[in-house]
Structures are given as structure tokens and as C-alpha cells.
């Protein structure tokens, strides 16, 4: 991946992060998880997935399923930047006048399926991947899961089934931001070693830095697929990435900031001083 391309992706990621920050006021959003997967989503839509505003009903398009769901501002921000939806719609976040709320809504162009209940979309992706295979189509099906989400038994159940049906057209992308809702994963329900777990489930596993576009590109385009093996990419990320004042802080999961605070955070994103945040985290879980 050349330097110009990386700069282009970084610029796009910054725009998406601006949208996420803006959506964290007036009712708020799950800002930390959105920021951790922003680079991954920007990369997938810009460089990897065969999906665009014109082919959304094409059965041969690639699919992206956002299983953890609460990180949807990153996806909405990307879809807005790439012309799937009008950017103005992001201002309608949480309004009954539109249909953009805290979790993905499949009425929004580009959203393949709704989520919000954890551990569901790996199985939805299995159904889609099975059908692509039945029709001898070469679409790829990517499902983004959160690491906390992997507490759910249905995630592992789906992995067994995906392996049984040798779904090598399926890519499970783990946004490994090291946090559950309120606490570090390793302090509550330890997940490591993730590579060993996925290898034990017979997957083709790769682990990367989820904020390094070269590594992401290498994993998606460079990694050899192995016939019959489900692909897993564990992307180590930082919750709240891009905003030092909330990065990797357990208490900055769901935030409802004031407009003054989001203005300060936009400045922080662009290298200005750390924002002084006084709004408390809303306890949802």
C-alpha cells in the first residue's frame, strides 16, 4: 500500500471520527467502540469490499455485518462519506424524523442487517455465506464482532457451524479493543489467547494492529485463504482511538457530551489540547 493511499485513508478516517464525535452530543452514542473500529470500517469500504451505493441489491456484492452494533456511528460516518447516505442525515441521529438510532437499522442504505443483541450476526453471516456458496458466487462476507461480544455462547456455536460448512468465504473481524462495557476483558472474562482459541476451532487466524492501514491491507489482501477454513482477523485496537482524553478509559463507553465538549474533542482530534470533559458516562449496561 503506497504512502498516498495511506494518507487518503487516514484523511477519511479523520472525517469519520469527526462524525462520531459530533454524534456523541445531544443524546450521545457509544463513542469508544465506534472510534476503535473506525479505521477497519474505513479500510473495508474503501479498499476491500465490492459494495457501493449503486450495487446494494446486487446478489454478488460483498457483505459487511456489524455484529456488535453499538459501534454503528463509525459505519454511518463511513457510509455518509462514501455517498451511501446524505451526510445531513447524521444530524438526525436519535430523532423520530429519521431512522438513525444507537444501533444499526437496515432501513438505512448500506446496513445489511440490524444488530444490537450481541452474538447474532455471525449466524446471519453464515446463512448468507452458505447461500453464496450454493449459488457458486464468490462474494465475501465480513462480520465485525466485538471482543466483549465473544462472551456470548452463540458466537462460539456459530464458529462450530461455520467450520462444519467450511465457509472460507466468511471473514470474522474481531475489534479487539480489550474492553467489555465497563471493564477490561482480561479483568472480567479473559479471552486470551485468542489465536489459540480460533486455531482450535480450525480457523485461518491472523492478528494485526487495527489502526495500521498497511497491516490491515496485508491481512485482507495479502493473507492466503486456505480452502475450507473460516478466516479470522483479530485486530488489536484502542477504545476511543484518536482522543487521548477518552482512550482506553473504562468510564468512557457510552458518552453524552455537551456541544462545548464535542467542539473541544474535535480540537483534540486535530492535535489541540486535551478536552476537559465533565459529562458523566451514561450507565446502560
Amino acid at each position, binding site marked *: 500500500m503506497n504512502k498516498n493511499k495511506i494518507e487518503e485513508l487516514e484523511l477519511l478516517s479523520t472525517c469519520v471520527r469527526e462524525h462520531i464525535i459530533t454524534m456523541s452530543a445531544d443524546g450521545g452514542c457509544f463513542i469508544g467502540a465506534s472510534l476503535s473500529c473506525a479505521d477497519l470500517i474505513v479500510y473495508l469500504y474503501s479498499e476491500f469490499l465490492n459494495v457501493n451505493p449503486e450495487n446494494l441489491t446486487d446478489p454478488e456484492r460483498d457483505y459487511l455485518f456489524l455484529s456488535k452494533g453499538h459501534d454503528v456511528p463509525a459505519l454511518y460516518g463511513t457510509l455518509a462519506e462514501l455517498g451511501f447516505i446524505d451526510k445531513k442525515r447524521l444530524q438526525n441521529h436519535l430523532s423520530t424524523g429519521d431512522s438513525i438510532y444507537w444501533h444499526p437499522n437496515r432501513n438505512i442504505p448500506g446496513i445489511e442487517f440490524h444488530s444490537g443483541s450481541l452474538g447474532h450476526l455471525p*449466524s446471519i453471516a453464515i*446463512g448468507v455465506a452458505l447461500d453464496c456458496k450454493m449459488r457458486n458466487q464468490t462474494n465475501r462476507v465480513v462480520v465485525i464482532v466485538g471482543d466483549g461480544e465473544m462472551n456470548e455462547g452463540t458466537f462460539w*456455536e456459530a464458529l462450530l457451524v461455520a467450520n462444519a460448512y467450511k465457509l472460507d468465504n466468511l471473514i470474522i473481524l474481531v475489534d479487539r479493543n480489550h474492553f467489555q462495557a465497563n471493564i477490561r476483558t482480561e479483568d472480567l472474562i479473559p479471552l486470551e489467547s485468542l489465536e489459540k482459541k480460533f486455531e482450535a476451532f480450525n480457523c485461518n487466524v491472523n492478528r494485526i494492529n487495527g489502526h495500521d492501514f498497511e497491516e490491515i491491507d496485508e491481512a485482507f489482501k495479502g493473507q492466503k485463504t486456505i480452502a475450507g477454513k473460516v478466516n479470522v482477523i483479530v485486530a488489536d485496537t484502542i477504545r476511543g482511538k484518536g482522543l487521548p482524553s477518552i482512550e482506553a478509559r473504562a468510564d468512557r463507553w457510552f458518552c453524552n457530551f455537551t456541544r462545548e465538549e464535542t467542539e473541544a474533542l474535535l480540537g483534540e482530534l486535530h492535535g489541540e489540547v486535551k478536552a476537559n470533559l465533565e459529562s458523566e458516562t451514561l450507565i446502560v449496561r
Partner: protein
Amino acid sequence: MNYEETLTELAKKDERIVVMTAENRALIRNMPAILGQRFIDTGITEQTMIGAAAGLALRGRIPVVHALASFLTMRAFEFIRTDVGIAHLPVKLCGYIPGFLSDANGPTHQAIEDISILRGIPGMEVYAPADENDLVAMLPTIINSPNPAYIRINHKKSDYKHEQYIPGKTEVISTGDDITLLTYGLLFENSLKAKAILEEQGYSVGLVNLRSLKPIDEELIINIANETDLIITIEDHFLTGGLYSILAEIFLKNQISCPVFPMALRERWFKPALLNQVLAFEEFTPEKIAEHAEREFESILVL
């Protein structure tokens, strides 16, 4: 044709149909060889099966999924509600051995709240055929409907010749001024025999095989409430949320009433045993149904 033959014929004619199971192959043993890739067994994973069915439906398929009714409707309930229900996908949920058909398996296997919870999902259709002939008569309509559906699979053999199925309509066996028996599923057989006993005793007896609990034939139920002295609801389901509750909802909505005696399971699971012994123990034999109906009818007359 039996259930498997009927479903096989439908699947042969319609490439959209995929047959799935969470390793419950009792009624579909011959289908893997015939359907090939369109037969998908996900193993003992009711939740993943429902999610995958929703994914297949997104791609234009009509998944006909099989599992034991209690695990299908309760273990996977949130997947049904969230993935099939919210997206309103045409997934057909086939619950095996619902109600008393779970025989001696015990309360883990007793799906006797299935109708209650499934009918609460917006857009979900709920069917309860009287026997395998009835199931076969209803199956093409159920599968061709664009809506999600739950079917209380009833594979009991019967010689009864059912009428053609009209979507959302009941099968009215008879109308009666004195007593009308409203039932669905396997209790149809004993209700039919109970009707004969009551008629021998001189009562004018109606009998309805409901077939579809959602949509429900509301007009027919209003007519019956207006024209018969006593309704007996007969169901292998908890009293809460099933046919008795459906009647209560219809009566309240239409501001009508009628004496109703419910035969159902009240706040408890049933005694596990072989089916005929269950029916006797729980008082769902033809004689007991007739006895309850006669007693209730005579008590109304006293009033």
C-alpha cells in the same frame, strides 16, 4: 402424501425452499439425499440455525426449519423475535412434538407456552394442524405466505378427511346451539369423539378445528359466541396466552361475552407419560371432555 413427501415435492418445485434442522431429522430423514445442499443440518444449535435461516432468507430463500418445539421456540426465542421477527423474513418454524406430543419426555420438552409467546411477535403466523393430513393440507399455503410462521408440527396419522385449507380460516365440523367445542392440534381427535358422545345424549354440539391461531378467524368466533350457549376451549397449552386468552381478547375488543369453560393446563406442566396415559391423567379423553362439557352446560341452566 405424508409431511416429508409433501415438503419434498414443494422443495423440488421451488428452488427458494431450503430445509434446515438442528439435528432433528425424525420427519425428514430422506431429504438430505434428495435436496443436497438445500438440506442444512446445523447440529444441536437452535439459535445459530435461526440466525442462519434469517441470513438465507435475506438472500431470497424460504427456510423451513426443524427442531423440537420447546427448544426451537424458547431456547432460540430471541433469535426468532430479533432476526426473523424484526426483519419480517419468511422463515417457517416447524416445532416437533409440541404440547402433549412430547409424551414421556418431561417438562424440559413440553412446549405448552409456544403459542402464547410466538403469537406475540408482530407479523408471525401461528398454525396448529389437527393431524398429519391436516398439516399436509395447510403446508403449501403456509410456505407460500410471505410472512414468518410457526407450525405446531403434528405427525399423528388419522383417517379423517379434512377440508381444503383456506388461509386464516377454521374448519367448522358442525355448529350447535347448546355447546361448541373449540380446539386445535392433536386434541381434535378426542374432541370429535366427545362431540359424538354429547350428541348421543341429545345435545346440539358444534365443533371447530381452529387450524390457524394467528391470524384467527375472529368473525367465526363472534358468531359462535352469539349462537351457542356454552363454549369449551380444549388445548394442550397453558391456560395463559393460548386459545382461552385469544377468546378473552376477542370478547373484550368486541364487547361481547359468552360462557366459556377452558380445558387447558393451569399454572403447571403436565404429567409425563405415554400419550394415551397423559390424555387420561390430564382428563382430555373423549369421555372426560364430554363429562366436563355436560356438567358445565347443566350448571349454566341452573343459573
